[in-house]
């Protein structure tokens, strides 16, 4: 995906067991922060939904 132009950080993969609630929270916080820092995604939106 990054090769195609999706910014690094917009897509994440994790491996979290259902018992690892704290890890889950940490990962979600982390991902949210990274994506927020990248700002709104204006690529890969249908023409009708584009924010102009």
């Amino acid at each position: 995906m990054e090769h195609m132009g999706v910014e690094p950080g917009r897509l994440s993969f994790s491996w979290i067991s259902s018992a690892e609630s704290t890890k889950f929270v940490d990962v979600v916080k982390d991902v949210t922060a990274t994506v927020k820092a990248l700002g709104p995604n204006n690529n890969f939106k249908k023409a009708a939904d584009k924010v102009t």
Partner: protein
Amino acid sequence: MLGYIDKIREISKRLLDEGRVDMVVGFRKGSMPMMNEPSFIKNSGEVSKLVWDSNCGINLANYLTDRKEKIGVIAKGCDSRNIVTHILENKIKRDQLVIIGVPCKGMIDRRLITAMFDTEVREVNEKGDTVTVKGAGFEKKLKKSDILQDNCSKCIHRNPVLYDELAAPLVEEQKDIDRYAEVRRIEAMSPQEKWQYFEDLIAPCIRCYACRNACPLCYCPTCFVDESRPQWVGKSQDETDIRTFHFLRAYHCAGRCTDCGACERACPVGIKVRQFTSKLNKDCLDMFGWEAGVLPDQRPPLDTFKPADPGDFIK
């Protein structure tokens, strides 16, 4: 390469006469220059229809999927790798096949040749490494090495990897080829430049799916693009839908693509669809040391686990 045909016909005739195969899958002359088409020969009287030259770029492994007959199949290096992939994926059984290997010297790029002339190309002949192109009012001799399909100019498996018969002596493989210069050029771009590069690349796509149909890997009974329940991807010409089709098609070929170029050859608007799969091929080589269809007895990287598999992308 022209000389191969006598041997191909002789082998095909023998296989059919001896009843070792029910049919031979090969090439016959197309109705337009540079467009040889697949042909299914079922009796030995017809073997004279078979042809062999530098216009046999279609991948014949595509015609073996789920067949029940015994088949003699003509295989260039890339076809043979797709046959190996087919065998690994249970799409055909090894003992159904007699593989007639054809050491390959590359296929010529029809689009490149057509673009060189203002008027229609009517006739293309070849002798050794010289290709003569004729049309109304022109005749030009070209060097074959200058007009190879892009994938063929970078091919390092011209000899079939698996065969029962051989139509000609093995050829020397190309060495010291930089297969991934173009991929590296894109890798060096910024995310926005990459996005734009692929946007421009697929802008002319009409979603005819010829690239998918030409590819031996694309054999799903219902392709994800045709499915309507659930509908995985929009059917429109919106750039989002077009891009979704392209990157998913590419992912479905990850670790399986042999860079045979059949997809690119089939595209009516000349999109370089291999730009997607080349990156995956490069990654497979870098991360797993894997080239599709080269090892008949090893499972592909995406359906096995090895402790050394890279995993740093998992957080």
